[in-house]
């Protein structure tokens, strides 16, 4: 390896080494499908960091809330080849599915990763893949394995091999950082460091760019930041607030909140021509736009009834905004599931703020979390989980809850505060 690249990697690693998000599953595994993931066979020289593919897959599947992997020490056997599997044993133990695999070193820094998924009741293989990897891609390979297994068994796309973005703050005077990491909190990288607030990061639909609000110039501005080239473009820096960016599903336009005309209202900007269209014009606060997946309407927060509530605004403006939430005095910050059927939001009541969901068809609302200051909900790309910001022992942490509310987990930084998560639809 080129010496300078090596030094650069060392510098990056040491810069972010303290900032890894640690994940704890805090609640609920009942109802999850039991699956046995046998530790993958290792064929090579001394074991490498990140070579524990089966361990990574196991924790991915556990985090989804849909699977309950058998703890490694409770495995009844450790078959390495298909012919070694004694299906009856696993059937009796109530295990539905079984995964075996191997990691083989084929050359210097070249690996072959293989896995097979078996249906224990039918006693047959249902999925099998081989990947080529390097030490740098072993973790993403493991997340790809998780995605394939998840998709095969649930019929839903996996969302493990993707990225999350979030904002951290630490130190005195406070330093704000915009970071991206794998969905399990590994490989954190800092995209922006600033003495002034950084807010509201949100992924482009293709997962290659982030939009966010930065106060680095002393005033607020919305930027679009290419995570690979590091190039940034200032999209909005009008007088007043420039806030709440939301990419349209095709990635060509962005909804945002501006107060340049005297009051916080929602606008749409074309990312190419920069032409601006005003969508709301009301004396109340209108903000936090979120696109419906068909791009025909936006969900937003408005205080037009006196208190913040969610509304739906049709983009052809054929009708007045329709109020969606009626329970409680504070309903804000919508995130819409990829199928458009569920809206996650912040529900405030009795001085506490929790994450809730509203089923759009039935208008049934369900409160999912029990925090006092939960905020910034963001659906996972497959709609099975909601990532959000919470408080734990007086510190700002990230947390996730399954959309049915059964499973919860916490992602905490060892040092400093972390907030405003956004889950990319895919890894790019």
């Amino acid at each position, binding site marked *: 390896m080129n010496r300078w690249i090596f030094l650069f990697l060392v510098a990056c690693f040491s810069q972010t080494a303290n900032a890894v998000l640690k994940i704890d599953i805090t609640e609920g595994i009942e109802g999850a499908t039991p699956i046995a993931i046998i530790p993958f066979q290792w064929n090579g020289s001394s074991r490498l960091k990140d070579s524990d593919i089966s361990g990574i897959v196991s924790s991915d599947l556990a985090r989804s809330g849909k699977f309950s992997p058998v703890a490694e020490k409770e495995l009844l056997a450790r078959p390495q080849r298909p012919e070694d599997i004694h299906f009856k044993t696993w059937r009796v133990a109530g295990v539905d599915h079984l995964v075996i695999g191997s990691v083989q070193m084929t050359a210097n820094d070249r690996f072959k990763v293989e896995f097979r998924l078996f249906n224990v009741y039918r006693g047959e293989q249902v999925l099998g893949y081989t990947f080529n990897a390097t030490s740098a891609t072993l973790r993403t390979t493991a997340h790809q394995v998780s995605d394939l297994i998840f998709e095969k068994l649930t019929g839903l796309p996996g969302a493990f091999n993707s990225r999350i973005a979030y904002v951290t703050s630490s130190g005195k005077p406070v330093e704000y950082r915009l970071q991206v990491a794998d969905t399990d909190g590994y490989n954190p990288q800092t995209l922006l460091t600033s003495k002034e607030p950084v807010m509201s990061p949100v992924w482009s639909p293709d997962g290659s760019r982030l939009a966010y609000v930065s106060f680095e110039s002393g005033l607020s501005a919305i930027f679009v930041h290419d995570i690979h080239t590091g190039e940034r473009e200032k999209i909005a820096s009008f007088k007043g607030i420039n*806030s709440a960016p939301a990419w349209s599903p095709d990635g060509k336009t962005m909804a945002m909140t501006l107060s340049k005309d005297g009051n916080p209202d929602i606008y749409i900007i074309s990312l190419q021509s920069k032409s601006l269209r005003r969508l709301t014009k009301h004396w109340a606060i209108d903000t936090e736009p979120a696109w419906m997946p068909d791009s025909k309407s936006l969900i937003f927060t408005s205080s037009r009834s006196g208190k913040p509530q969610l509304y739906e605004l049709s983009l052809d403006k054929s009708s007045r905004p329709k109020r969606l939430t009626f329970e409680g005095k504070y309903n804000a910050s919508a995130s819409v599931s990829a199928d458009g059927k569920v809206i996650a939001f912040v529900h405030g009541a009795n001085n506490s703020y929790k994450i809730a969901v509203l089923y759009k068809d039935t208008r049934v609302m369900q409160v999912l979390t029990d925090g006092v200051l939960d905020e910034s909900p963001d659906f996972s790309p497959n709609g099975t989980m909601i990532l959000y910001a919470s408080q734990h022992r007086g510190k700002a942490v990230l947390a996730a809850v399954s959309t049915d509310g059964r499973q919860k987990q916490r992602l905490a930084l060892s040092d400093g505060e972390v907030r405003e998560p956004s889950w990319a639809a895919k890894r790019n």
Partner: protein
Amino acid sequence: MKIITMKNGIFLLVMALLISGCTPGAKPDSETGTGAEGGESGTGATVGTIGEGGALAGSALEGMTISYEKNAINDPENVLSIKTIYFAFDSSEISEDDVEVIKHHGKYLALNSDATLRLEGHTDERGTREYNIALADRRAQSIKKLLLFQGAGSSQITIISYGEEKPEALGHDEDAWKLNRRAELVYE
């Protein structure tokens, strides 16, 4: 110069009426004439100058001096030394005492046209971050309206909304929250 201002809220009442869209000619009823105590005004038409040449009584501002000389903003005895305005939860309404304070800042800006003011809006940590950015913007905007009403120039005032991003106090209770729901007037 020591001053008196009115001891009740007549001026504020008129301000509120003006701001809420009543015509300037629409005077409040007969109570208007009793508004000033020792002040030079006493009618609805002149309430805008109550406080000048008098002394504040029965107000939180009692005993503070008023002058609009260039360096008056650095005088801890001057009413202009009050540079933080506090708000109720989810509200951008300004209290009566604070309207009085903001009025003096507006006059100062009007009389010192080279002075520039940065109006920073803040909220407490409750509620969502982006809603709080909008709420803090409205807090700053409502102060700006009062400043303009006193003759300050729009170009003298820059608004920046920080929402809940820059708390003054770090606790998670009302003691901290009440200090964080604020707007700061920063002369540049």
